[in-house]
């Protein structure tokens, strides 16, 4: 399984990637949307973990673009703006939302869940 973490908070995803690696999940990191698009052109990922609020391309826009490149790709959204149930019309029910600060065990659980059901 291969996943990509996209967040402008560099230290956050760096640490997260390392911790996932320790748990046997290989994660690439991207600090901007463009970087994430670039990387997903080279590599096929199973899951993309996206921050919703980012400078430049937002998490939602990025999802649309990445879906265009790989329709099979699953998404997990991470947001600092409150808990589950954001009232954003662009989000659909099949997406998973997690609130910051993130519980890594919960993240791993969700990753496995969507890759299995998907």
């Amino acid at each position, binding site marked *: 399984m291969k996943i990509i973490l996209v967040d402008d*908070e560099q230290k*956050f995803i760096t*640490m997260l990637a390392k*911790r996932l690696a320790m748990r046997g999940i290989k994660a690439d990191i991207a600090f901007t949307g463009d970087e994430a698009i670039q990387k997903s052109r080279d590599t096929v990922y199973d899951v993309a973990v996206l921050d919703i609020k980012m400078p430049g391309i937002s998490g939602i826009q990025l999802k649309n673009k990445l879906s265009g490149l790989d329709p099979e790709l699953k998404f997990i959204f991470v947001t*600092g703006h*409150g*808990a589950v149930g954001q009232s954003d019309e662009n989000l659909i029910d099949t997406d998973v939302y997690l609130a*910051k600060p*993130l519980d890594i065990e919960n993240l791993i659980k969700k990753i496995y869940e969507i890759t299995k059901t998907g």
Partner: protein
Amino acid sequence: MRKKFISSLKIFWPEFHKRKGNIHLEPFYTFTDYQHLWTMSIFVLALTALIPLCIVTLIHYQLIQKSVDSELRLRTERLTSNAKRSVAFFMEERLNALIFTVDEMGYDHLIDNKKLVEILKNLKHGFGGLSDLSVIDMGGNQIAYAGPFNLQGKNYKDQPWFAQGLKNKYFISEVFTGYRELPHIIIAVRSVKKDGSIFILRATLDTERLMQTLTSYKTGEYIDIFLVNNNGVLQTPSVHYGDIFTRTDLKTFNYSTRTEVSMSTCQGVPVILGHSFISTDTVVTPFILVVSKKKQDMMYAWLELRQKINWTVGISVILIVLVITFASTFMVNKLYQIDNAKAQTMLQMEQNQQLASIGQLAAGVAHEINNPLAVINQTAGYVKDLFSFKDEVRDDDEIIENIDSILEAVDRCGTITRQLLGFVRQFDIKIKKVRLKKIVADVLSFHKKESEYRGIHVTVDIPDTIPDMETDSGKLQQILVNLVNNAFQAVTEDGCLDIIGSQIDTETIELVIQDTGCGISEDSLAKIHEPFFSTKQDQMGTGLGLSITYGLVKKLGGNISVHSTEGVGTSFTITLPIKIQERELA
């Protein structure tokens, strides 16, 4: 009964008197001085209604007074004229009879006593009112006499009436006592004997008969009819002025053939006086007929009417004032209620705006904090992982423990920021699927520490079978926060707070929040939903909590009721529709 009466008086007592000073609310009132508004309204309306009433009443009084006066004058004048005509006729008739006797009989016939007695008898029979008859020569000697008194041979030379009798052809005297020492009137006719000398035929008028004539005109007790002479001496007894020969204070009347009416006083009491000089075609008498009526007695009917008018006007004034007070109170109350509602809405809007902006600020802060928290979280997690995955430090409990404390602190911060963000959302009016149990748990989490410190037992009994509600979660949350806050303020240490949820039917759920606190008194119970009613004077309570709660429950299409016993506890029961209609939120 008394309570009922007192409560019925409330319609005259405006509500603003019960107003509790609320400095937050004052700036939003359109009218500041309701007391002034109320009194001015009553004053101006009363003035507008009562001034015309008073003016009309006064004019009415004057008109009635004038018409009564003129009626009194007219009646007195008529009575005086009629009585005068009767008295004049009485005297004239007897005088004419005497003239006829003198002309027909001649001197020789008259001085015969027997014949004179016969003549007196005939006169009495024909006319009545004569008591004796006598013939007197120029020297005042009584030549012949017929009558009941022993006056034969008396000389009248020195009597005042005799001189008058000689002087005038016909003469009627005043009332005097004379030789017989009884009040009487003399009628005298002067005539000439064959030898050219003068003699007088004198008759005495029966005063009793005269008085009877006068009395027959007395139509009521308050009317006094009598005769006076030119000097104001009574010639017949008077009810008001005294007995015969009493000198009265009646002013000297100027001679007139007409009947005259004037206003005067008798012993300080106002009277209407009618008078008329009694004269016949042949002779002027010394009598003045006077009719005296006490005005007060005559005015009795008018006074009674005036009393009725006074009562009617008095009752009308009271009714007008009552109606005006009621109308003013009603209008000012309505104005006050509208103004109060406006002020409360304005205040609530202001508070909502403040809350909203504080909420927005809190949301911003929470969001900004969440990112560094995420970094701390992951970094600390990474450090923990490093240690956890390395065998040499895996068993070092101290390091793991410290890192766990960092992670736990981050977790707690995360919970707080999540809740802050949750509250911000209550300003968005949006219907969402809400799990009642979760909302209750969220609200109670704020009081977790407090309940632990104070030893308050909190029990939540909400079965999982209750379906998710479709409602405004923010409002529901606010309702619960207010009620739970109140319960926490009411209970003492070791008190209990129970939150029990149940489904009543397919459309409604019920939530009971009961505590074992101090309870609410019966008086306060009726007012707790009123805005700005607060028993927490010392604790700076705004008195808005329960009224907002009440409003919010209504907005969610539900109902709220309260049962409380002082010293035992309070129980709030809320029923809410499981699925709220959109229009109910509008």
